[in-house]
């Protein structure tokens, strides 16, 4: 009965990974002029593709960009998600149903569409922000410029992700029995103290999971910068690691080095995830183990 699951897993997850692994150790050798059959043959390349991928300054630059992007995005997104979840759960907030639905709504918007919407909002000729700041006599910097595009893209991901993470944290807050809060209140704890000392520790496991999923998603950012490219000339075709892999594989037809880069990205994702889980699990659950 497990067969359909295992077969699909094997064909669409395990096999592609193994095939990529195989390709990453191959290269094409061209003999003569490279014409006719047999002139191009695939030979074992050892670690050459990996050395090329890791030594490629473009690849290093794209990794650097993604790490900066993650360092901007993830703390902002999780901080805001936690703040909104705590506010929704607070007895002193109003308009909670409306706010919850409104903040969660962007999750229904595909990244391509949200990049498209924000992309237009970043265009000075269309954007209300530029219209308003112009009226006020303030010069607003170009978001689509090479200095700020990083923040522009992080904002798109923030917009799309904050509501989902908020719901995750809010769901775990809802699971807490009310008695705990009542007891704390009887002891004279303020709402803020309850939030900091009781609620945040309770949602820590959810925060860890949302952080993990955010890290994995960040390393793979592709749709947002790809969609924004027609609107600005500051985004190169190798702006993120996956964009570079895509370009190598499909524009340059160099599937061997693209395969090596894919493996490097996948391995790095796994490594970062495991290290992250190790570190926070020790901190968060140290007493229980």
């Amino acid at each position, binding site marked *: *009965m*497990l067969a*359909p*699951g*295992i077969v*699909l*897993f094997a064909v*669409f*997850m395990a*096999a*592609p*990974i193994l*095939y*990529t692994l195989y390709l990453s150790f191959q290269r094409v050798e061209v003999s003569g002029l490279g014409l006719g059959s047999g002139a191009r043959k695939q030979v074992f390349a050892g670690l050459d593709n990996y050395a090329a991928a890791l030594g490629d300054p473009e690849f290093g630059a794209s990794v650097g960009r993604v790490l900066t992007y993650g360092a901007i995005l993830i703390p902002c997104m999780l901080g*805001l998600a936690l*703040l909104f979840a705590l*506010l*929704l759960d607070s*007895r002193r*907030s109003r*308009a*909670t*149903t*409306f*706010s919850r639905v409104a*903040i*969660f*709504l*962007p999750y*229904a*918007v*595909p*990244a391509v569409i949200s990049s*498209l919407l924000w992309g*237009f*909002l970043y265009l000075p000729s269309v*954007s*209300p922000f530029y*219209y308003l700041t112009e009226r006020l006599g303030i010069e607003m910097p170009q978001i689509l410029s090479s200095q700020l595009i990083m923040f522009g893209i992080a904002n798109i991901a923030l*917009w799309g992700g904050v509501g989902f993470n908020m719901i*995750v944290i809010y*769901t*775990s807050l809802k699971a807490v029995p009310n008695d705990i809060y009542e007891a704390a209140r009887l002891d004279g704890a303020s709402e803020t103290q309850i939030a900091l000392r009781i609620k945040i520790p309770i949602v820590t496991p959810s925060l*860890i*999971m*949302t952080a993990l*999923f955010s890290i994995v998603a960040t390393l*793979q950012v*592709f749709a947002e910068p*790809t969609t924004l490219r027609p609107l600005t000339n500051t985004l190169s075709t190798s702006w993120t690691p*996956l964009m570079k*892999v*895509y370009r190598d*594989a499909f524009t340059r037809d160099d*599937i061997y080095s693209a395969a090596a880069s894919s493996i490097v990205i*996948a391995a790095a994702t*796994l490594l970062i*995830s495991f290290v992250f889980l190790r570190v926070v699990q020790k901190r*968060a*659950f140290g007493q229980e183990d």
Partner: protein
Amino acid sequence: MADTLTPPLTPSLRPRRDSVHGHEKPSAVATALLLLGALYCLLPVFWVVMASTKDGSELFSTFTFAPSTHLFDNIAELSAYRDGLFWRWMANTALYAGAGAIASTFVSALSGYVLAKFAFPGKGAVFNILLMGVLVPGVILAIPQYFLMAQLGLTNTYWAVFLPQIISPYGIYLARIYAAAAVPTDVVEAARTDGASEMGIFARIAMPMMLPGLVTIFLFQFVAIWNNFMLPYIMLGDDTLFPITVGLNGLLNQGASAPALYTLVVTGALLSILPLILMFLLLQRFWRVDLAAGAVKA
């Protein structure tokens, strides 16, 4: 016990302490912060509604939030674009997401049920590999999957987008949690003693018990496929097979040289998010996202 007695459709996200609201002094700061967040999230949606009522020249000249009267002209123009290609993209997206999510939910339910209720050698290994699959999700696999699909001659077909998205490690993981919680082992054993087949037990007894959880898996997978960009972007070259994300991306690309297409892009963006937003509002109560349940300590 209390869990199994609750009607499965109880809205779980409705604020539980509604009755106590009002006893406490409302905080203007807290409410203002929430409304600010809501405003931020609604702003682009509001913009696209306004922008899709404008014609090509108004889009770049009139004030952003000033509505105009060309919404239906824009929709008509979009529908006429290359013989209704836009609606073809919408239908494709619905097909990929609908059929894909149903297939994926079924496979997840079956695998999760087996992992929760059967003991067999290698079960621990299967589960651990699955968890690794959660950490390396679809997007990183897309290029390797392309190479494989190319070997099978399936690139540039519906299958290329449909098949890889059936397997969802996260869906299986969730289904295993639901099966462990909602399907009592003695019920399964009783049915087995009565001579029911294993598939029959799964389909007639376990599936209905897991149903509320399966709706959540379905929604997750539906949104994931609907939002997916990279896989179809890589797999498909024929634009009559495109889902909406790839289609609008291509239209925006052409818009860079033919700005008249921008109104089509904007109108298309509005029309494409409406169904999903509607589905969200109607099915809100199924969004129970307890990621951490058992996950961290597993």
